[in-house]
Protein backbone atom coordinates (compact mmCIF):
# COMPACT_ATOMS: atom_id res chain seq x y z
CA UNK A 1 0.00 0.00 0.00
CA UNK A 2 2.83 2.33 0.68
CA UNK A 3 3.94 1.64 -2.88
CA UNK A 4 0.65 3.07 -4.07
CA UNK A 5 1.37 6.23 -2.16
CA UNK A 6 4.77 6.45 -3.79
CA UNK A 7 3.42 5.99 -7.29
CA UNK A 8 0.84 8.68 -6.69
CA UNK A 9 3.55 11.06 -5.52
CA UNK A 10 5.47 10.45 -8.73
CA UNK A 11 2.29 11.05 -10.73
CA UNK A 12 1.95 14.45 -9.12
CA UNK A 13 5.56 15.39 -9.82
CA UNK A 14 5.94 14.06 -13.33
CA UNK A 15 5.00 16.14 -16.30
CA UNK A 16 5.45 13.48 -18.94
CA UNK A 17 1.91 12.33 -19.52
CA UNK A 18 2.92 9.00 -21.05
CA UNK A 19 4.83 8.10 -17.92
CA UNK A 20 1.96 9.26 -15.78
CA UNK A 21 -0.48 7.01 -17.62
CA UNK A 22 1.77 3.96 -17.29
CA UNK A 23 2.19 4.75 -13.61
CA UNK A 24 -1.54 5.03 -13.10
CA UNK A 25 -1.85 1.59 -14.68
CA UNK A 26 0.67 0.26 -12.19
CA UNK A 27 -1.22 2.02 -9.44
CA UNK A 28 -4.36 0.17 -10.48
CA UNK A 29 -2.56 -3.17 -10.34
CA UNK A 30 -1.28 -2.37 -6.87
CA UNK A 31 -4.81 -1.43 -5.91
CA UNK A 32 -6.06 -4.74 -7.26
CA UNK A 33 -3.46 -6.58 -5.17
CA UNK A 34 -4.57 -4.78 -2.05
CA UNK A 35 -8.16 -5.63 -2.87
CA UNK A 36 -7.31 -9.33 -3.12
CA UNK A 37 -5.66 -9.08 0.26
CA UNK A 38 -8.92 -7.63 1.52
CA UNK A 39 -10.85 -10.64 0.19
CA UNK A 40 -12.60 -8.58 -2.48
CA UNK A 41 -11.73 -10.85 -5.38
CA UNK A 42 -14.54 -9.71 -7.65
CA UNK A 43 -13.63 -6.09 -7.15
CA UNK A 44 -9.95 -6.82 -7.66
CA UNK A 45 -10.63 -8.56 -10.94
CA UNK A 46 -12.71 -5.68 -12.18
CA UNK A 47 -10.20 -3.10 -11.02
CA UNK A 48 -7.40 -4.94 -12.85
CA UNK A 49 -9.46 -5.18 -16.03
CA UNK A 50 -10.80 -1.65 -15.88
CA UNK A 51 -8.12 0.38 -14.14
CA UNK A 52 -5.07 -1.25 -15.65
CA UNK A 53 -6.69 -2.38 -18.90
CA UNK A 54 -9.48 -0.25 -20.32
CA UNK A 55 -8.54 3.02 -18.63
CA UNK A 56 -4.93 2.78 -19.76
CA UNK A 57 -5.93 1.99 -23.33
CA UNK A 58 -8.38 4.89 -23.36
CA UNK A 59 -5.89 7.29 -21.85
CA UNK A 60 -3.18 6.27 -24.32
CA UNK A 61 -5.66 6.58 -27.16
CA UNK A 62 -6.61 10.07 -26.07
CA UNK A 63 -2.97 10.95 -25.53
CA UNK A 64 -2.19 9.86 -29.06
CA UNK A 65 -4.67 12.45 -30.23
CA UNK A 66 -3.26 15.15 -27.99
CA UNK A 67 0.12 16.36 -26.78
CA UNK A 68 2.18 14.23 -24.45
CA UNK A 69 3.81 16.95 -22.36
CA UNK A 70 2.25 19.15 -19.79
CA UNK A 71 3.05 22.63 -21.01
CA UNK A 72 3.24 24.90 -18.01
CA UNK A 73 4.85 24.30 -14.71
CA UNK A 74 1.91 24.35 -12.34
CA UNK A 75 1.57 27.62 -10.53
CA UNK A 76 0.47 28.69 -7.11
CA UNK A 77 -0.54 25.37 -5.59
CA UNK A 78 -1.37 26.84 -2.20
CA UNK A 79 -5.09 27.19 -2.54
CA UNK A 80 -5.65 23.73 -4.06
CA UNK A 81 -3.38 22.28 -1.40
CA UNK A 82 -5.39 23.97 1.29
CA UNK A 83 -8.68 22.73 -0.16
CA UNK A 84 -7.57 19.13 -0.55
CA UNK A 85 -5.84 19.09 2.83
CA UNK A 86 -8.96 20.34 4.56
CA UNK A 87 -10.97 17.62 2.86
CA UNK A 88 -8.41 15.12 4.09
CA UNK A 89 -8.54 16.61 7.55
CA UNK A 90 -12.29 16.26 7.64
CA UNK A 91 -11.96 12.65 6.63
CA UNK A 92 -9.29 11.90 9.25
CA UNK A 93 -11.62 13.42 11.81
CA UNK A 94 -14.43 11.22 10.54
CA UNK A 95 -12.59 7.94 10.22
CA UNK A 96 -11.08 8.14 13.69
CA UNK A 97 -14.52 7.48 15.10
CA UNK A 98 -15.12 4.42 12.93
CA UNK A 99 -15.18 0.93 14.39
CA UNK A 100 -11.84 -0.87 14.71
CA UNK A 101 -10.42 -2.66 11.70
CA UNK A 102 -11.89 -6.14 11.42
CA UNK A 103 -14.27 -5.72 14.33
CA UNK A 104 -16.93 -8.41 13.89
CA UNK A 105 -19.39 -6.40 15.98
CA UNK A 106 -19.27 -3.38 13.68
CA UNK A 107 -22.69 -2.37 12.39
CA UNK A 108 -21.95 -3.41 8.82
CA UNK A 109 -21.33 -6.98 9.94
CA UNK A 110 -24.37 -7.39 12.14
CA UNK A 111 -27.12 -5.63 10.18
CA UNK A 112 -28.50 -6.51 6.72
CA UNK A 113 -25.53 -8.59 5.65
CA UNK A 114 -26.19 -11.73 7.74
CA UNK A 115 -29.22 -12.43 5.60
CA UNK A 116 -27.10 -12.41 2.47
CA UNK A 117 -24.61 -14.82 4.01
CA UNK A 118 -26.98 -17.14 5.85
CA UNK A 119 -30.24 -17.29 3.97
CA UNK A 120 -29.05 -16.75 0.44
CA UNK A 121 -28.49 -20.50 0.14
CA UNK A 122 -32.22 -21.10 0.42
CA UNK A 123 -33.35 -18.00 -1.38
CA UNK A 124 -31.05 -17.70 -4.38
CA UNK A 125 -28.55 -20.54 -4.06
CA UNK A 126 -25.59 -19.06 -5.89
CA UNK A 127 -22.25 -19.74 -4.20
CA UNK A 128 -20.73 -16.36 -5.03
CA UNK A 129 -22.52 -14.03 -2.65
CA UNK A 130 -21.28 -10.97 -4.53
CA UNK A 131 -23.01 -12.17 -7.69
CA UNK A 132 -26.20 -12.91 -5.79
CA UNK A 133 -26.34 -9.49 -4.17
CA UNK A 134 -25.28 -7.74 -7.36
CA UNK A 135 -27.74 -9.38 -9.68
CA UNK A 136 -30.65 -10.15 -7.41
CA UNK A 137 -30.92 -8.39 -4.06
CA UNK A 138 -29.61 -5.14 -5.45
CA UNK A 139 -30.39 -5.90 -9.07
CA UNK A 140 -31.80 -2.46 -9.70
CA UNK A 141 -28.47 -0.84 -8.89
CA UNK A 142 -26.89 -3.04 -11.52
CA UNK A 143 -29.54 -2.06 -14.03
CA UNK A 144 -28.62 1.53 -13.25
CA UNK A 145 -24.96 0.68 -13.66
CA UNK A 146 -25.58 -0.91 -17.04
CA UNK A 147 -27.47 2.21 -17.99
CA UNK A 148 -24.50 4.33 -16.94
CA UNK A 149 -22.25 2.30 -19.24
CA UNK A 150 -24.78 2.64 -22.02
CA UNK A 151 -24.99 6.39 -21.41
CA UNK A 152 -21.23 6.70 -21.66
CA UNK A 153 -21.17 4.66 -24.87
CA UNK A 154 -23.93 6.62 -26.55
CA UNK A 155 -22.40 9.83 -25.23
CA UNK A 156 -19.01 9.08 -26.75
CA UNK A 157 -20.74 8.32 -30.06
CA UNK A 158 -22.60 11.61 -29.85
CA UNK A 159 -19.36 13.47 -29.20
CA UNK A 160 -16.92 11.73 -31.50
CA UNK A 161 -18.85 10.58 -34.55
CA UNK A 162 -17.23 12.08 -37.63
CA UNK A 163 -19.29 14.69 -39.31
CA UNK A 164 -19.55 14.31 -43.04
CA UNK A 165 -19.74 17.98 -43.90
CA UNK A 166 -17.37 20.18 -41.98
CA UNK A 167 -16.88 20.08 -38.24
CA UNK A 168 -18.31 22.36 -35.67
CA UNK A 169 -16.54 25.71 -35.50
Amino acid at each position, binding site marked *: MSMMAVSVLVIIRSRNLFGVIVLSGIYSFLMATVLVAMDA*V*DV*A*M*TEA*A*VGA*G*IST*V*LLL*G*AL*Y*LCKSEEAHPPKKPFLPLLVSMSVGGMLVYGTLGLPEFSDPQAPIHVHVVPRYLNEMK*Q*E*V*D*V*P*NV*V*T*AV*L*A*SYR*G*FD*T*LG*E*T*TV*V*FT*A*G*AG*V*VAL*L*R*RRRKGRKP
Partner: protein
Amino acid sequence: MKNDLILRVIAKLLIPFILLFALYVQFHGDFGPGGGFQAGVILAAAVIFYALIYGLADARKVVPEPLVESMMAIGVLIYAGVGVAGLLLGGNYLDYFVLDPNPVRGQHRGIFWVEVGVATTVSGVMLKIFYMFADRGKVDEE
Protein backbone atom coordinates in the same frame (compact mmCIF):
# COMPACT_ATOMS: atom_id res chain seq x y z
CA MET B 1 2.66 -4.32 -37.28
CA LYS B 2 0.08 -5.60 -39.74
CA ASN B 3 2.54 -7.73 -41.61
CA ASP B 4 4.32 -9.37 -38.77
CA LEU B 5 3.76 -13.08 -39.33
CA ILE B 6 4.64 -14.20 -35.85
CA LEU B 7 2.25 -11.75 -34.27
CA ARG B 8 -0.54 -12.81 -36.59
CA VAL B 9 -0.09 -16.45 -35.83
CA ILE B 10 0.12 -15.92 -32.11
CA ALA B 11 -2.97 -13.76 -32.27
CA LYS B 12 -4.84 -16.43 -34.21
CA LEU B 13 -3.91 -18.93 -31.53
CA LEU B 14 -4.64 -16.69 -28.59
CA ILE B 15 -7.94 -15.11 -29.53
CA PRO B 16 -10.04 -18.27 -29.30
CA PHE B 17 -8.69 -18.79 -25.81
CA ILE B 18 -9.47 -15.25 -24.81
CA LEU B 19 -13.02 -15.70 -26.08
CA LEU B 20 -13.30 -18.97 -24.23
CA PHE B 21 -12.01 -17.32 -21.09
CA ALA B 22 -14.62 -14.59 -21.47
CA LEU B 23 -17.35 -17.21 -21.67
CA TYR B 24 -15.89 -18.97 -18.63
CA VAL B 25 -15.88 -15.74 -16.64
CA GLN B 26 -19.42 -15.05 -17.79
CA PHE B 27 -20.96 -18.35 -16.81
CA HIS B 28 -18.76 -19.25 -13.90
CA GLY B 29 -19.62 -15.98 -12.20
CA ASP B 30 -22.08 -17.82 -9.98
CA PHE B 31 -19.33 -19.92 -8.44
CA GLY B 32 -16.16 -17.87 -8.58
CA PRO B 33 -15.23 -14.29 -9.12
CA GLY B 34 -16.47 -12.82 -12.35
CA GLY B 35 -19.70 -12.02 -14.09
CA GLY B 36 -21.19 -10.08 -16.92
CA PHE B 37 -19.14 -6.95 -16.56
CA GLN B 38 -15.76 -8.63 -16.48
CA ALA B 39 -16.72 -10.98 -19.31
CA GLY B 40 -17.84 -8.05 -21.42
CA VAL B 41 -14.53 -6.30 -20.89
CA ILE B 42 -12.56 -9.41 -21.83
CA LEU B 43 -14.70 -9.95 -24.91
CA ALA B 44 -14.09 -6.40 -26.04
CA ALA B 45 -10.39 -6.78 -25.27
CA ALA B 46 -10.21 -9.79 -27.58
CA VAL B 47 -11.62 -7.81 -30.48
CA ILE B 48 -9.40 -4.82 -29.71
CA PHE B 49 -6.42 -7.16 -29.72
CA TYR B 50 -7.54 -8.46 -33.10
CA ALA B 51 -7.89 -4.92 -34.39
CA LEU B 52 -4.39 -4.01 -33.22
CA ILE B 53 -2.79 -6.95 -35.02
CA TYR B 54 -4.90 -7.20 -38.16
CA GLY B 55 -5.85 -3.57 -38.51
CA LEU B 56 -9.03 -1.70 -37.89
CA ALA B 57 -10.61 -2.44 -41.24
CA ASP B 58 -10.40 -6.20 -40.74
CA ALA B 59 -11.84 -5.91 -37.26
CA ARG B 60 -14.71 -3.89 -38.66
CA LYS B 61 -15.47 -6.71 -41.08
CA VAL B 62 -15.59 -9.28 -38.29
CA VAL B 63 -17.51 -7.09 -35.87
CA PRO B 64 -19.30 -4.42 -37.90
CA GLU B 65 -20.05 -1.09 -36.29
CA PRO B 66 -23.87 -1.13 -36.55
CA LEU B 67 -23.83 -4.45 -34.71
CA VAL B 68 -21.73 -2.92 -31.96
CA GLU B 69 -24.05 0.02 -31.61
CA SER B 70 -27.08 -2.25 -31.44
CA MET B 71 -25.36 -4.41 -28.83
CA MET B 72 -25.09 -1.42 -26.51
CA ALA B 73 -28.84 -0.95 -26.67
CA ILE B 74 -29.84 -4.60 -26.71
CA GLY B 75 -27.98 -5.35 -23.49
CA VAL B 76 -29.93 -2.71 -21.57
CA LEU B 77 -33.14 -3.96 -23.16
CA ILE B 78 -32.40 -7.54 -22.07
CA TYR B 79 -31.81 -6.41 -18.52
CA ALA B 80 -34.85 -4.16 -18.39
CA GLY B 81 -36.80 -6.87 -20.22
CA VAL B 82 -36.12 -9.39 -17.45
CA GLY B 83 -37.66 -6.87 -15.10
CA VAL B 84 -40.71 -6.47 -17.32
CA ALA B 85 -41.04 -10.25 -17.57
CA GLY B 86 -41.23 -10.30 -13.80
CA LEU B 87 -44.03 -7.75 -13.99
CA LEU B 88 -45.95 -9.71 -16.61
CA LEU B 89 -45.74 -12.90 -14.62
CA GLY B 90 -47.33 -11.19 -11.64
CA GLY B 91 -44.34 -10.21 -9.52
CA ASN B 92 -42.74 -6.89 -8.77
CA TYR B 93 -40.25 -5.28 -11.14
CA LEU B 94 -37.06 -7.38 -11.43
CA ASP B 95 -38.75 -10.15 -9.45
CA TYR B 96 -36.97 -13.36 -10.45
CA PHE B 97 -38.98 -15.63 -8.18
CA VAL B 98 -41.86 -15.75 -10.63
CA LEU B 99 -39.73 -16.61 -13.64
CA ASP B 100 -39.96 -20.29 -12.87
CA PRO B 101 -42.41 -22.43 -10.86
CA ASN B 102 -39.50 -23.17 -8.58
CA PRO B 103 -38.49 -19.83 -7.03
CA VAL B 104 -34.82 -20.73 -6.65
CA ARG B 105 -34.61 -21.86 -10.28
CA GLY B 106 -36.34 -18.60 -11.15
CA GLN B 107 -33.58 -16.71 -9.37
CA HIS B 108 -30.97 -18.62 -11.37
CA ARG B 109 -32.73 -17.85 -14.60
CA GLY B 110 -33.08 -14.18 -13.76
CA ILE B 111 -29.43 -13.80 -12.79
CA PHE B 112 -28.34 -15.61 -15.95
CA TRP B 113 -30.21 -13.31 -18.30
CA VAL B 114 -29.30 -10.22 -16.38
CA GLU B 115 -25.61 -11.11 -16.64
CA VAL B 116 -26.03 -11.71 -20.37
CA GLY B 117 -27.51 -8.25 -20.69
CA VAL B 118 -24.64 -6.67 -18.77
CA ALA B 119 -22.01 -8.46 -20.85
CA THR B 120 -23.69 -7.44 -24.11
CA THR B 121 -23.87 -3.78 -23.22
CA VAL B 122 -20.40 -3.62 -21.71
CA SER B 123 -18.64 -5.29 -24.62
CA GLY B 124 -20.65 -3.21 -27.10
CA VAL B 125 -19.81 0.04 -25.36
CA MET B 126 -16.12 -0.75 -24.90
CA LEU B 127 -15.73 -1.69 -28.56
CA LYS B 128 -17.68 1.30 -29.75
CA ILE B 129 -15.55 3.64 -27.68
CA PHE B 130 -12.43 2.00 -29.08
CA TYR B 131 -13.66 2.37 -32.65
CA MET B 132 -14.56 5.97 -32.02
CA PHE B 133 -11.15 6.89 -30.61
CA ALA B 134 -9.39 4.98 -33.38
CA ASP B 135 -11.43 6.84 -36.00
CA ARG B 136 -10.51 10.21 -34.61
CA GLY B 137 -6.86 9.24 -34.87
CA LYS B 138 -7.15 8.87 -38.62
CA VAL B 139 -8.52 12.38 -39.00
CA ASP B 140 -5.37 13.78 -37.51
CA GLU B 141 -3.10 11.68 -39.68
CA GLU B 142 -4.64 12.81 -42.91
